[in-house]
């Protein structure tokens, strides 16, 4: 047996070995990637958005805007208080509501409702919204995010469970006003 033959045989085994490991690595990458991206591919049993109860209709008097609290659908025992979220519930009349996300559509800080002036104000960068969620002033580019709602057995339900961000498809509030201009009363 000559030396070069011997070397090339071993070199081939090295290459085969690398190829073998490459195939195994590619196979292992599939479950690893699926695991890492599970929150993106949403491979979970519970849906991200579900109808969630906000409580009895009587808690929300007509003509007023009040704070509602709901428990998110996809939570774990160790989430503690972060399992809960707030929202602003505006009852216009008996059957008509608007339920706004607490998050300012600028960068997500919690907006506060001032019934006296009929405005939502954000403490972070000074975003202001009208009582119907439309943008009034400040840096936000759109109105407050609105949850879909339904009424069953005199109880109010909203479809929620995902953090609303500026990329979330907007509700009616966003449709009413994007440019910041509002027909004057």
């Amino acid at each position, binding site marked *: 047996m000559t030396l070069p033959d011997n070397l090339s045989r071993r070199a081939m085994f090295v290459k085969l070995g690398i190829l073998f490991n490459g195939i195994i690595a590619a196979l292992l990458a599939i479950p690893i990637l699926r695991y890492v991206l599970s929150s993106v591919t949403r491979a979970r049993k519970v849906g991200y958005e579900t109808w969630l109860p906000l409580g009895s209709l009587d808690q929300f008097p007509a003509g007023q805007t009040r704070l509602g609290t709901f428990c998110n659908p996809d*939570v774990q025992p160790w*989430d503690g208080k972060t399992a809960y979220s*707030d929202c602003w519930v505006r009852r216009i009349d008996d059957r008509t509501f608007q339920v706004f996300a607490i998050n300012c559509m600028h960068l997500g800080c*919690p907006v506060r409702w001032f019934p*006296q002036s009929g405005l939502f104000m954000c403490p972070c960068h000074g975003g202001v919204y009208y009582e119907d969620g439309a943008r009034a002033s400040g*840096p936000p580019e759109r109105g407050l995010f609105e949850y879909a709602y339904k009424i069953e057995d005199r109880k109010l339900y909203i479809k929620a469970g995902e953090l609303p*961000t500026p990329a979330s498809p907007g509700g009616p509030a966003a449709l009413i006003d994007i440019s910041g201009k*509002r027909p004057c009363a």
Partner: protein
Amino acid sequence: MRLIRQIGEWFDERLQLAATLRETVEHPVPRETASWFYVFGSAALVVFVMQIITGIMLAVIYVPSAGEAWNSLQTLNHSIALGWYIRALHGWGSNFMVAIVLIHMVQVFLFGAFKYPRELTWIVGIFLLLMTLGMAFSGQVLRFDQDAFWGIGIGASISSRVPIMGPWIVNLLLGGPIIAGATLSRFFALHVFVIPGMLIGFIGLHLLMVLKLGINEWPMPGRIVRKSTYLKEYHELIKKDGIPFFPGAVYKDIFFAGCVLLTLAIVAAYFGPFGPSGRPDPTIIQTVPRPDYFFLWLYALLSLLPPQMETPALLIGPVVALLFLLLLPFLFGEGEKSWKRRPIAVLTILLVAVVLGTFTDLAGHAPWSPVMDAWSGDPIPQQFLQKRSALERQGALIFQLKQCHNCHALGEEGGKRGPALDNVALLLTPDQLIRQVIQGGGNMPAYGKNLSPPETTALVAFLKTLHPAGQQPARDASRAVAEEPATHPPGSKNP
């Protein structure tokens, strides 16, 4: 002594490290680099080691669970002997590390150390800076309090603006649909395993290159870097005027690192740990989230940019800045090193420093944020109410009740989101005041729906009184003409 040497020799016979170590610590460096300007890199390394030690100590007690993290910080602060001090050391150590890394970067930039052949050392340094900032942000998240909770929300809001990929990035960042336990767990993994692991690897690479390529010589005006001749010149310099790093230069590093650690120990003892602020309870909305010190400039920038500029600035700005930093050694890899011959470099540093300093200072008092409780907490100063009619005082009440004070200051009290109104009557006529209140505009909401006509009348009556004594309020000159008794019937010719 003989015994110690024998033990040492026994180990070295097996480890075979002594020769390499001696060669490393005694490698020759240019004489002038034994300077107080060359101590920041080693100081950053020492603070990093300090962070590892205090970090491990905190991990012994800390519970990375959204439900328990805040409580475990309270335990650290109040129940464990000197737990508060370890937290203070780690928190202040983080600030120290960011500061020293930035100073190191400025020194390297001004001394032209990024030029040939140290381009890759600079690029690895840029990644080290990014990782240091990543550690600072993820560390703020682990202090799982109200600021941390809403801070991640801001991170999610910024990420969501990425076109197409935005919502996916948000879910990847949060580890689920909302900020909850999964979010904290993944930031814990990042802060404790992923980024430190990468940092250690990149620091090793950074140091290896410093050793292999030699420390940057003291820049002399007129000593030009050329790729064809630089290496030869550097070796000649070291041969002619080199000293061994140990002990020739290292004593300054040791003294400076010691001073930094001493300052850190004193600052941590005096100021104590950071927070935690309120519980991370999303249902408590009476909160005014503020970022940590090193991200305050960003907080200011996001308030001051015109809204339509924000998304492009957020998405394109960092990419351009990063690309510029990465390409810097390729664009300016040769030529003058001395800052005395590089005025644009010096001006750039000054500009960046002034901009970041100004933004950070502004963020300290955040004039763009409404003062959420000014309407109920800050009274209107007396001088604006004395000798006023009942209607005007009613207007002052409406000014408070409708939260005008949250955005408009009177006598330095109240919000600064909108202009101070101490002299508003000098600037706007009564008609303009009514129009502004009802229709808003110029970044002010319209109050038309929420003010009755009598309320508007009272409010404007009050606003009309806001001018210095002895100065006439603004008036509409055409109005005066219109209200004059007509001396000439319309249509008739002047005499």
